[in-house]
């Protein structure tokens, strides 16, 4: 941000009463507008939260704003949507577990791989380094839609060129399909991850690296003992980012995990409920809140890291 604007040297006007009134009016307007925006932005979520605790017959017949005139609270919706017996109830507990099983490895793998690659691209000298970096950087613009069809066929049929099998089919069933989801998420996350972490790793002080080299430390040793501790904030930022992305993803899960309760995450199940049972608001409201609550907690408690990562990624880009 090096742009400078020439400030016009005009006659400095002494603060007049009119000026003071105008500026106070400005701030009053500013406050009013910002409060309106804040309310519009919060109200929909608030309505969902209130509704999820209201009894079924009330949700379906009266608006959630009437709750304050006639407050009735129940946990029935949550019990139904998490553990209900009938297949239409949601059974979200099972899907919740799937979301966790999908998310953990899908965050860990790209984090480690991207950190390793970022270190090599920043601090090891080898031929073709710039080209590999530019290549990975450029892959950021490829929409993941470009990879979906062939990647799915690779999992089910392997890769063969001209009748010669290059890679065998994976033939995964039931719970084993988690592996596909992990694999897909890791692939799609790497270009951004390498870029973000490279931004950070390459800015570590050169003296530090050279001192470590002179002391006879090998690259793996420098990576573990010098670099990793220093880039923890960046790792945290990227980790949160990837966590939110994976937990909230619908498309990748829909294609690689399928819709069954042995692999599908919360998002897939909720989208299904919204489609087939669009008027069962007692389940949709509580179900949506079940899906939202984990990322919300992560987000609120680690917001500082997330914002820092966001800024590092977007302003330098």
């Amino acid at each position, binding site marked *: 941000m090096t742009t400078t604007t020439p400030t016009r040297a005009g006659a*400095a006007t002494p603060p007049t009463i009119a000026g003071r009134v105008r500026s106070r009016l400005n701030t009053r307007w500013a406050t009013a507008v910002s409060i309106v925006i804040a309310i519009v932005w*919060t109200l929909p979520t608030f309505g969902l939260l209130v509704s999820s605790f209201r009894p079924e017959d009330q949700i379906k017949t009266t608006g959630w704003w009437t709750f304050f005139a006639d407050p009735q609270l129940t946990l029935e919706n949550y019990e139904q949507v998490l553990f209900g017996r009938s297949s239409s109830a949601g059974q979200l507990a099972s899907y919740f577990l799937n979301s966790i099983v999908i998310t953990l490895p899908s965050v860990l793998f790209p984090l480690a791989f991207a950190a390793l690659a970022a270190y090599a691209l920043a601090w090891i000298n080898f031929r073709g380094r710039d080209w590999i970096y530019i290549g990975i950087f450029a892959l950021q613009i490829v929409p993941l839609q470009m990879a979906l069809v062939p990647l799915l066929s690779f999992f089910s049929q392997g890769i063969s060129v001209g009748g010669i099998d290059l890679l065998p089919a994976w033939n995964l069933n*039931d719970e084993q399909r988690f592996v596909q989801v992990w694999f897909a998420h890791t692939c799609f996350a790497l270009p951004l991850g390498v870029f973000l972490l490279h931004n950070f790793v390459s800015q570590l002080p050169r003296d530090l690296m050279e001192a470590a080299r002179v002391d006879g430390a090998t690259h793996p040793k420098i990576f573990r003992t010098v670099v990793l501790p220093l880039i923890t904030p960046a790792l945290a930022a990227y980790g949160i980012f990837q966590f939110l992305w994976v937990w909230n993803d619908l498309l990748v899960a829909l294609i690689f995990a399928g819709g069954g309760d042995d692999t599908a995450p919360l998002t897939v199940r909720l989208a299904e409920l919204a489609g087939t049972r669009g008027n069962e608001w007692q389940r949709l409201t509580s179900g949506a809140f079940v899906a939202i609550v984990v990322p919300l907690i992560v987000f609120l408690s680690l917001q500082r890291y997330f914002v820092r990562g966001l800024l590092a990624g977007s302003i330098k880009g």
Partner: protein
Amino acid sequence: MNFDFADEAPKLAMLLYGVVAFVAVVGGLLLLLDVVPTWLARRRQARLAAAVAAGRPLEPGRRRSREGLFALFFLLPTVLMLGIGLVIPAIRTLVLSLRNGDSTQWVGLRNYGWMVDRPEIVDILWNTALWVLLVPLLATSVGLIYAVLVDRARLEALAKSLIFLPMAISFVGAGIIWKFVYAFRPAEADQIGLLNQIWVWLGGEPQQWLANPPLNTLLLIVVMIWIQAGFAMVVLSAAIKAIPTDMVEAARIDGVNAWQQFWRITLPGIRPALVVVVVTISIATLKLFDIVRTMTNGNFNTNVIATEMYNQAFRYGQTGQGSALAVVLFILVIPIVIYQVRSLRRQREV
């Protein structure tokens, strides 16, 4: 209660396998890289000692190639994954887009011609254009206005969190939240959706908001703006705070009012951040899938490219047409990125 832990055991086992695989792969790689060089060094030392003992000249070390070896192992997982998971599939998608539905025959550019010929696909392209035009513009505007308004105000952190919060909510969750806002009940019953209630209070008839084009697409766009404004606000707010305070002070002494200050100082100062925000939101909007699928499933003329791509490739089994739509998506991203690269480069030269 219908939650049987025995039923869930295989999942936990898979999670365990996943974590063990992670430890094995990453730990193994680091261990390998740790052990091998030490072993090599020891061998070289032995060779050196032997050479010295025999009185032969020392051979020069091959340090450079060993650096390359390290780099190879550090990069191997990433390059391998990107190759298998992104590069090869992208090339195959390009090829598949030139073949027919079950990819048994070459059809040339017929899949691309099909998009222009079919009115429903043309509608989809127009819908996508509307999304990409409106979402970046409005989300960035709201984010910018809010960032300016709450800058240095009381409770700034709280005010920002409120707008930022939707970023943590999945598009599916946001879809349900807003579908509830748009919910419809017949006129004789009490409304449960906030929008219809406000509409009725204002004297209107309750509407099936999501079933009436073209208004329904605009209402879906609202959801995306709701999510993205927080992102714009955070990035722009940081940029505003990075404007040198002496510049703002100087302007204030010169008697510049808030309005002029915004147009002459704030806006030029945050231009690079503004470009990044608009570009990032545009690309995210182009690829948008979840909101449309959750809220209308593309019915009532609300379809966009990404949802139709999913339908063609994975529901109707029309691999060729689905791939062609994916390629179109890719092609549409390119000019946006070129714009970003060029305007950032121009900024750096100034």
